[in-house]
Protein backbone atom coordinates (compact mmCIF):
# COMPACT_ATOMS: atom_id res chain seq x y z
CA UNK A 1 0.00 0.00 0.00
CA UNK A 2 1.21 3.50 -0.85
CA UNK A 3 -0.62 5.98 1.36
CA UNK A 4 -0.82 9.54 0.13
CA UNK A 5 1.15 11.93 2.31
CA UNK A 6 2.52 15.46 2.08
CA UNK A 7 5.59 13.96 0.45
CA UNK A 8 3.52 12.04 -2.09
CA UNK A 9 4.02 13.41 -5.58
CA UNK A 10 0.75 14.88 -6.81
CA UNK A 11 1.92 14.66 -10.38
CA UNK A 12 2.59 10.96 -9.94
CA UNK A 13 -0.93 10.46 -8.63
CA UNK A 14 -2.39 12.31 -11.62
CA UNK A 15 -0.33 10.16 -13.97
CA UNK A 16 -1.39 6.99 -12.18
CA UNK A 17 -5.02 8.06 -12.48
CA UNK A 18 -4.57 8.47 -16.23
CA UNK A 19 -3.20 4.92 -16.37
CA UNK A 20 -6.40 3.67 -14.73
CA UNK A 21 -8.22 4.81 -17.87
CA UNK A 22 -6.11 2.60 -20.12
CA UNK A 23 -8.24 -0.30 -21.42
CA UNK A 24 -7.61 -3.83 -20.24
CA UNK A 25 -9.07 -7.07 -21.65
CA UNK A 26 -11.69 -6.86 -18.88
CA UNK A 27 -13.25 -3.69 -20.31
CA UNK A 28 -15.42 -1.66 -17.92
CA UNK A 29 -15.21 -4.39 -15.28
CA UNK A 30 -11.42 -4.03 -15.28
CA UNK A 31 -11.70 -0.24 -15.20
CA UNK A 32 -13.85 -0.35 -12.07
CA UNK A 33 -11.47 -2.75 -10.39
CA UNK A 34 -8.52 -0.48 -11.19
CA UNK A 35 -10.38 2.63 -10.06
CA UNK A 36 -11.35 1.19 -6.67
CA UNK A 37 -7.94 -0.32 -6.06
CA UNK A 38 -6.39 3.03 -6.99
CA UNK A 39 -8.41 4.64 -4.18
CA UNK A 40 -7.44 1.95 -1.70
CA UNK A 41 -3.78 1.71 -2.57
CA UNK A 42 -3.18 5.44 -2.45
CA UNK A 43 -5.68 6.22 0.34
CA UNK A 44 -7.51 8.65 -1.92
CA UNK A 45 -10.96 10.13 -2.05
CA UNK A 46 -12.42 10.11 -5.58
CA UNK A 47 -15.23 12.21 -6.98
CA UNK A 48 -16.56 12.01 -10.52
CA UNK A 49 -19.11 14.61 -11.52
CA UNK A 50 -19.91 16.78 -14.52
CA UNK A 51 -17.41 14.87 -16.68
CA UNK A 52 -14.55 15.60 -14.31
CA UNK A 53 -12.64 13.29 -12.05
CA UNK A 54 -11.20 14.68 -8.81
CA UNK A 55 -8.89 13.05 -6.30
CA UNK A 56 -7.46 14.03 -2.95
CA UNK A 57 -6.11 12.39 0.17
CA UNK A 58 -8.82 10.66 2.20
CA UNK A 59 -10.48 13.12 4.55
CA UNK A 60 -8.75 16.16 3.07
CA UNK A 61 -9.40 18.70 0.34
CA UNK A 62 -9.37 17.67 -3.30
CA UNK A 63 -5.92 17.84 -4.86
CA UNK A 64 -6.43 17.60 -8.58
CA UNK A 65 -9.17 17.43 -11.13
CA UNK A 66 -8.85 15.93 -14.58
CA UNK A 67 -11.42 15.61 -17.33
CA UNK A 68 -13.21 12.25 -17.47
CA UNK A 69 -11.45 10.97 -20.58
CA UNK A 70 -13.88 8.27 -21.72
CA UNK A 71 -17.26 8.20 -23.48
CA UNK A 72 -20.40 8.78 -21.44
CA UNK A 73 -21.53 5.22 -22.07
CA UNK A 74 -18.36 3.96 -20.37
CA UNK A 75 -19.06 6.18 -17.36
CA UNK A 76 -22.65 4.91 -17.14
CA UNK A 77 -21.47 1.30 -17.34
CA UNK A 78 -18.83 2.06 -14.71
CA UNK A 79 -21.54 3.30 -12.36
CA UNK A 80 -23.72 0.28 -13.16
CA UNK A 81 -20.87 -2.05 -12.25
CA UNK A 82 -20.33 -0.20 -8.96
CA UNK A 83 -24.04 -0.55 -8.21
CA UNK A 84 -23.71 -4.29 -8.79
CA UNK A 85 -20.79 -4.49 -6.37
CA UNK A 86 -22.62 -2.79 -3.51
CA UNK A 87 -23.08 -5.18 -0.63
CA UNK A 88 -26.48 -3.70 0.25
CA UNK A 89 -28.46 -4.59 -2.91
CA UNK A 90 -31.71 -3.06 -1.65
CA UNK A 91 -30.04 0.27 -0.92
CA UNK A 92 -29.33 0.90 -4.60
CA UNK A 93 -31.21 0.93 -7.88
CA UNK A 94 -29.54 1.11 -11.29
CA UNK A 95 -30.05 4.87 -11.05
CA UNK A 96 -28.86 5.89 -7.62
CA UNK A 97 -27.82 4.70 -4.22
CA UNK A 98 -25.34 4.64 -1.39
CA UNK A 99 -23.59 1.59 -0.08
CA UNK A 100 -20.36 -0.20 0.56
CA UNK A 101 -18.07 -2.10 -1.76
CA UNK A 102 -15.69 -4.66 -0.29
CA UNK A 103 -12.33 -5.11 -1.96
CA UNK A 104 -10.62 -8.43 -1.32
CA UNK A 105 -7.41 -8.40 0.65
CA UNK A 106 -6.00 -9.24 4.01
CA UNK A 107 -7.76 -7.57 5.64
CA UNK A 108 -10.47 -6.71 3.08
CA UNK A 109 -11.12 -3.00 2.50
CA UNK A 110 -14.60 -1.54 2.66
CA UNK A 111 -15.14 1.54 0.49
CA UNK A 112 -18.15 3.81 0.89
CA UNK A 113 -19.73 4.72 -2.43
CA UNK A 114 -22.54 7.01 -3.50
CA UNK A 115 -23.66 7.35 -7.07
CA UNK A 116 -26.25 8.74 -9.45
CA UNK A 117 -26.57 7.21 -12.90
CA UNK A 118 -29.33 8.78 -14.98
CA UNK A 119 -29.30 9.96 -18.60
CA UNK A 120 -28.81 13.55 -17.41
CA UNK A 121 -26.61 13.10 -14.35
CA UNK A 122 -23.68 10.84 -13.59
CA UNK A 123 -21.93 11.17 -10.26
CA UNK A 124 -19.71 8.97 -8.14
CA UNK A 125 -18.19 9.50 -4.73
CA UNK A 126 -15.78 6.90 -3.33
CA UNK A 127 -14.56 7.30 0.24
CA UNK A 128 -12.35 5.25 2.45
CA UNK A 129 -13.74 4.50 5.89
CA UNK A 130 -12.85 7.03 8.55
CA UNK A 131 -9.76 6.01 10.46
CA UNK A 132 -10.51 6.16 14.19
CA UNK A 133 -8.43 8.65 16.11
CA UNK A 134 -6.73 7.59 19.33
CA UNK A 135 -9.51 9.30 21.28
CA UNK A 136 -12.35 7.50 19.49
CA UNK A 137 -10.50 4.20 19.59
CA UNK A 138 -9.95 4.54 23.34
CA UNK A 139 -13.57 5.52 23.83
CA UNK A 140 -14.79 2.49 21.89
CA UNK A 141 -12.44 0.28 23.90
CA UNK A 142 -13.83 1.67 27.15
CA UNK A 143 -17.40 1.15 25.90
CA UNK A 144 -16.68 -2.48 25.16
CA UNK A 145 -15.32 -2.94 28.67
CA UNK A 146 -18.35 -1.39 30.36
Amino acid sequence: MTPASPSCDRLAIAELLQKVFTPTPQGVVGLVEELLEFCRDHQLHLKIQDNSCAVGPAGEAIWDTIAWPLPKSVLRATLARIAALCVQPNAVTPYRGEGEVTLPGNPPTVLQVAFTNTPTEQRLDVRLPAVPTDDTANHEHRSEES
Partner: protein
Amino acid sequence: MYLESGPFLFKPPQDYARGKSREFPDEGGAVILVLDVPDEIVQNAVSEWFPLSQGLVQFDFGAGMEELLVAWPGVAGSAEIRSVT
Protein backbone atom coordinates in the same frame (compact mmCIF):
# COMPACT_ATOMS: atom_id res chain seq x y z
CA MET B 1 -28.32 -4.84 -23.21
CA TYR B 2 -27.22 -8.16 -21.68
CA LEU B 3 -26.16 -11.28 -23.52
CA GLU B 4 -28.71 -13.93 -22.59
CA SER B 5 -25.88 -16.31 -21.76
CA GLY B 6 -24.25 -13.86 -19.33
CA PRO B 7 -22.03 -13.44 -17.40
CA PHE B 8 -24.09 -10.96 -15.41
CA LEU B 9 -21.41 -8.74 -13.95
CA PHE B 10 -23.77 -5.77 -13.78
CA LYS B 11 -26.37 -7.71 -11.74
CA PRO B 12 -28.60 -10.48 -13.08
CA PRO B 13 -31.26 -9.12 -15.45
CA GLN B 14 -34.03 -9.99 -12.97
CA ASP B 15 -32.35 -7.90 -10.24
CA TYR B 16 -31.69 -5.07 -12.69
CA ALA B 17 -35.35 -5.10 -13.75
CA ARG B 18 -36.51 -5.04 -10.13
CA GLY B 19 -34.21 -2.10 -9.43
CA LYS B 20 -35.65 -0.19 -12.37
CA SER B 21 -39.15 -0.99 -11.14
CA ARG B 22 -38.31 0.41 -7.69
CA GLU B 23 -37.22 3.62 -9.37
CA PHE B 24 -40.38 3.81 -11.49
CA PRO B 25 -43.12 2.20 -9.37
CA ASP B 26 -45.97 3.47 -11.56
CA GLU B 27 -44.83 1.74 -14.77
CA GLY B 28 -46.44 -1.66 -14.31
CA GLY B 29 -43.70 -3.68 -12.65
CA ALA B 30 -40.50 -5.40 -13.65
CA VAL B 31 -40.12 -7.20 -16.99
CA ILE B 32 -37.27 -8.35 -19.18
CA LEU B 33 -37.46 -7.59 -22.89
CA VAL B 34 -35.72 -10.34 -24.86
CA LEU B 35 -34.50 -9.32 -28.32
CA ASP B 36 -32.83 -11.42 -30.97
CA VAL B 37 -30.22 -9.09 -32.46
CA PRO B 38 -28.23 -10.41 -35.44
CA ASP B 39 -24.66 -11.30 -34.54
CA GLU B 40 -23.15 -8.97 -37.13
CA ILE B 41 -24.90 -6.01 -35.48
CA VAL B 42 -23.77 -7.09 -32.02
CA GLN B 43 -20.20 -7.33 -33.29
CA ASN B 44 -20.36 -3.69 -34.35
CA ALA B 45 -20.94 -2.76 -30.70
CA VAL B 46 -17.85 -4.57 -29.43
CA SER B 47 -15.05 -2.28 -28.31
CA GLU B 48 -12.11 -2.28 -25.93
CA TRP B 49 -14.44 -1.10 -23.15
CA PHE B 50 -17.30 -3.40 -24.07
CA PRO B 51 -15.91 -6.84 -24.90
CA LEU B 52 -18.62 -9.50 -25.06
CA SER B 53 -16.78 -11.40 -22.32
CA GLN B 54 -18.32 -9.07 -19.75
CA GLY B 55 -21.84 -9.98 -20.90
CA LEU B 56 -22.91 -6.46 -21.80
CA VAL B 57 -23.65 -5.04 -25.25
CA GLN B 58 -23.57 -1.25 -25.49
CA PHE B 59 -25.02 0.14 -28.70
CA ASP B 60 -23.79 3.67 -29.37
CA PHE B 61 -23.78 5.82 -32.47
CA GLY B 62 -20.67 4.73 -34.32
CA ALA B 63 -20.78 1.39 -32.50
CA GLY B 64 -23.76 -0.58 -33.79
CA MET B 65 -26.60 1.85 -33.08
CA GLU B 66 -27.14 2.84 -36.72
CA GLU B 67 -27.29 -0.80 -37.79
CA LEU B 68 -29.62 -1.66 -34.91
CA LEU B 69 -31.99 1.14 -35.87
CA VAL B 70 -32.14 -0.11 -39.47
CA ALA B 71 -32.90 -3.66 -38.26
CA TRP B 72 -35.20 -2.50 -35.45
CA PRO B 73 -38.60 -3.28 -37.05
CA GLY B 74 -37.66 -6.93 -37.40
CA VAL B 75 -35.86 -7.09 -34.06
CA ALA B 76 -38.72 -5.49 -32.15
CA GLY B 77 -41.26 -7.62 -33.99
CA SER B 78 -39.77 -10.78 -32.55
CA ALA B 79 -39.35 -9.41 -29.03
CA GLU B 80 -40.43 -11.48 -26.07
CA ILE B 81 -41.56 -9.93 -22.80
CA ARG B 82 -40.73 -11.98 -19.71
CA SER B 83 -42.33 -11.03 -16.42
CA VAL B 84 -40.16 -10.80 -13.32
CA THR B 85 -41.75 -11.77 -10.03
